[in-house]
Structure formats: structure tokens, C-alpha cells
């Protein structure tokens, strides 16, 4: 096994052995990412027979069904829930990320750890914790009954508010961590310069800090928005079946209704939405850097 010394530099062309080693990676991605995505698309063009089997074909009927107001409403509701969750996470999380980044190194490490633990805690456990708090005989209602008996019990669980609370609770660390990374890279001299030029904190934030941390915000927003649009587990647990989101409908088409082609069409629509949001973010990202 002798290779020319040129192969040592990063940037060399792979030889036969390297190609051989690359094969598992290529095969894995082709077989389990690319091919399934294509099959999903193919499936969305088919239809189901009366036993729930997929009949492959070529019809756009499933996509026409997507335009049914029922599904359009569900799509819009999912986007609304995800947007609300993302906005709340940003409002709640940004100051926290900022505070962590400007804390003394020791405190910073501790604070980071304190955000990491919920980040790694199973979202099922965290959602379940809210079920226990919000249910009729739960802690919050006990508190309400104690403070203001006339109001108790409040129907808290299985409401849209419960779903959004659970989603914000689950995804908050996903926003804090990337924003922190971006605030931490902030050049303090720039802020000082702005202060020296007479800008107060209310002026420095929108014109210096915010644009410079835009990459972190973009990353955080993606990490929150994308999974929440398609979430079905949190909505199932905290929303009951009362507030179906697009994830619940897809899940239902695949496992209960057994209309795979329609579920696949919903999935392809979701994939399209996801790709569009990625392209938008990519288009936005360089501006944030350039403006800084």
C-alpha cells in the first residue's frame, strides 16, 4: 500500500482504497435517504385499494385533496403553532443566551450545563411532566382552587395553550444553545465603540448586536420551527385529539386510516415546505454576516 506523497495533503483525489472506504457512506445515504424520499414521492402519485394496499400509478389526485379546506386549515394551523412556538422561544430564550454569553467563565459553564440537561432530557419526560401539572387534578388547578376557588377547575390540559406551552418547554434549549454560540463570538470592541459613539443599550441592540447574532438566531429558529411543524407526539399528549396538526394527520394516514398515498402526498408537501424554508434561511444568512 504505497501512495504518492501528494495524497497526504487534504484536498487530494481519492484513490481506489479511499473510494472503497467511501462506499458504505454513499450506499447508506443513497439507500436510506435518497431512495426512500423518491419512493415517498412515487407513492404519493398512487392510490390505495379497498384493503389499504398501495396501487402504484400516476395521478395528482392526492395533491388535489391537499387543497381541501380541511387540510389547508390543518397546514395553516401547524404553521401558526410552529411560528408561535418559535417566536415565544426566541423572546424567552434570547435574553438567556445573551446573559450566559456575557457571564464570567465559571458562571457561564454552570449556566450552559443547566441548559444542557433539559436539552438532553427526553422530550417525552418533559411533556409528561406538563401533563401532570395541567390536568384537572394537577398542581396548577390545585393552586387555582386554593387562590381562587370559584375558577377551579380550569380546563387546561388538551387545549391549544397546553400544546404551545409543551412545545416551548421542549424546544427552548434548542434555541438558547445556537444563539449563545453566536453571542459568544460577538466582538465586545464593536459594542464598546457603539457606546463610545453615544449609543445607549436600546440603540446598540437593534443596530449592532441583533444583526451580528443573526446566524445564531437563524440556526435556533430552524431547530425549533422544523420539528414543531411536524410534531405529533406532544400534540397527542397535551392536545388530545382536539387540535390535529399536520404531523397527526400524516401519522393517522399511515397507521390508522392506512391511506399511504395520501399520507405520502402530505409528507411531500411538508418536505417541500421544509426545503423552501431552508433555501430562505440560506438566502438570509449571508446578509446578517455582511451587515455586521
Amino acid at each position, binding site marked *: 500500500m504505497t*501512495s504518492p506523497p501528494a495524497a*497526504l495533503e*487534504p*484536498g*487530494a*483525489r*481519492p484513490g481506489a482504497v*479511499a473510494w472503497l*472506504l*467511501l462506499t*458504505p*457512506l454513499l450506499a*447508506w*445515504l443513497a439507500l*436510506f*435517504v435518497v431512495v*426512500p*424520499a423518491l*419512493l*415517498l414521492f412515487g407513492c404519493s402519485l398512487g392510490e390505495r385499494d379497498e384493503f389499504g394496499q*398501495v396501487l402504484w400509478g400516476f395521478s395528482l389526485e392526492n395533491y388535489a385533496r391537499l387543497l381541501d379546506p380541511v387540510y389547508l386549515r390543518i397546514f395553516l394551523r401547524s404553521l401558526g403553532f410552529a411560528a408561535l412556538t418559535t417566536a415565544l422561544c426566541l423572546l*424567552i430564550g434570547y*435574553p*438567556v443566551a445573551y*446573559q*450566559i454569553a456575557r457571564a464570567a467563565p465559571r458562571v457561564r459553564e454552570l*449556566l450552559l*450545563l*443547566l441548559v444542557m*440537561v*433539559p436539552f*438532553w*432530557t427526553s422530550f*417525552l*419526560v*418533559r411533556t*409528561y*411532566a*406538563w401533563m*401532570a*401539572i395541567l390536568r384537572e*387534578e394537577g398542581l396548577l388547578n390545585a393552586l387555582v382552587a386554593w387562590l381562587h376557588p370559584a375558577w377551579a377547575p380550569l380546563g387546561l390540559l388538551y387545549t391549544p395553550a397546553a400544546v404551545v406551552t409543551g412545545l416551548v*418547554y421542549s424546544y427552548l434549549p434548542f434555541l438558547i444553545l445556537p444563539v449563545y454560540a453566536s453571542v459568544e463570538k460577538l466582538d465586545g470592541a464593536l459594542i464598546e465603540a457603539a457606546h463610545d459613539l453615544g449609543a*445607549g*443599550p436600546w440603540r446598540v441592540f437593534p443596530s449592532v448586536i441583533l444583526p451580528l447574532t443573526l446566524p445564531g438566531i437563524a440556526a435556533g429558529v430552524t431547530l425549533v420551527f*422544523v*420539528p414543531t*411543524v411536524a410534531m*405529533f*407526539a406532544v400534540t*397527542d*399528549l397535551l392536545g388530545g385529539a382536539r387540535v390535529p396538526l399536520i*404531523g397527526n394527520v*400524516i401519522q393517522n394516514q*399511515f397507521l390508522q386510516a392506512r391511506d399511504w398515498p395520501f*399520507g405520502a402526498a402530505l409528507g411531500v408537501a*411538508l*418536505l417541500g415546505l*421544509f426545503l423552501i424554508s*431552508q433555501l430562505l434561511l440560506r438566502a438570509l444568512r449571508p446578509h446578517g454576516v455582511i451587515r455586521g
Partner: protein
Amino acid sequence: MAAPRFPLLSPAAGPRLLAAGLRGWTALVLVFLYLPVLVLVVYSFNAARLGVGWEGFSGRWYAELLQQGPLQRAALNSLVVAGATTLLSVVLGTLGAWLLHRYRFPGRDLLESLVNLPMVMPEILLGISLLVLFALAGVGLGFTTVIIGHVTFSFPFVLVAVRARLQGLDPALEEAARDLGATPWGAFRHVILPALRPAILAGGLMAFLLSWDELIVTYFTASAASATLPLKVFGLAKVGLNPVLNALSALFLLVTLAGVAFSTYLRRAAR
């Protein structure tokens, strides 16, 4: 605190109030993040079945956990799946990171986007598209299908972690090894690999925790016999509250804490 040297509304008061506000807000958010989970842990020791009232300290629900065969079975399944996922992800991720770092070839950028895709794509899409693939290929759902799903979204995390470490590595390291007569494999095995160990361990830990917690992809790719713990817990939680689940959640938390502690230790060791 020393007596304020400035009246409250001095020019310095604004920033100082802001700083205090930021601190207070951060504390409040941390309470918000921890309180629900802490309540859950405390109540897992409550003798009462589901009431709000405290009826005494008891380990009853933990004891009952030991009698739940299906849950234990699911926990074992989860361990098997997470173990296999970690192993495969580490191999695939490390190899991929090394090759993507070392070589330039046509389609490399496309390949990189493809690697990133499973990390950012909504999990439900991975789940349903794999389900269609397995159905079409006539592969029955079981451990293999769950592990395939898990590896697909886990190995990119290993790859990214290892790649970041590779980029910080001095290229002269490998050169020196080769000059001293090491074969390419020898240089990789004895020079590069040890330098990558912290990143590989961190990536592997991430793969393990991701797999251990995963619900959505599993939901579409598991059979009844290969159901993992999150899948079982989800099924139980959908029906309603259950004191045994409180105890189980507390144990879950313990696993997470151990994982985070281990990863912190790894990061310290890497420095």
C-alpha cells in the same frame, strides 16, 4: 452591596437595571425549565396514587416498576437499539468525516448536504419514507429496521463532531508519521485515531442519547416485539397519568444526568 455611588437615574442606571433584569430573567427561565421536571421527580416518591396531596414518602412506584415485564422488555430493546446505533454511527461517522476531510472529489458538496439532511429534516419524513421503503422491499419491521432508522439520523452527528476535530488537527502530524515509515493505515490507526478519540466518544455518546430518546422514527419502523422504551411510554402516557410512569421518568432523568456529566468530563479531558 455597596451604597450606590450614582443616583438611580444616572446614565449608568439604565445599563445596570438592564443587567439586573437579564440576570433575573435568566433565573426565571431556569426555574421554568426545571420546576416541572422536579415536581415530577418529587411526586414519583409520593405514596398517593395521583393526588396533589402528599401522603408520605414511598418507593412503591419504583418497586412496581420492577414488576412491569413489558416495560423492562422495552428498556432492554432500547439498550440493544441504542448500542447498535452507537456502534454503527461511530464507524460510519468517523470514516465519513475522515474521507470528507481528506479528499476532494466531484459531488463532494452534494454529499455533504445529504449528510446534513437527516439531522435537520423533520423526523416524521424519515419515518414514513423508510416505512414505504421497507414495505416495498418486503422487509418486515423489527430491530433491523429500527436500527437503520436510528443510524440514519445519528451518524451525521458523529461525523460533524469528528470533522470539527479533524479541522483543528495539524496536517503535519500525519505527514510526520508517514515520513517515519508508517503506512497510511498505520498513520491513521496510531496517530489520527488517538487524536480523534474525544470527538469520537462525544459523538458516540450523542448517538446513544439520541437513539435512546427517539420516538418519531421508531414509531414508524418498529414492530410490537422491537418497541423501544419511548414508544411504550408514549403509548402509556396517551392513556393518561400513571404513577409508575413518574418513577420511570425520574429514572430517565438519571440516565440523562449521567450522560451530560460524562460528556462534560469528556470536554474537560479534551482540553
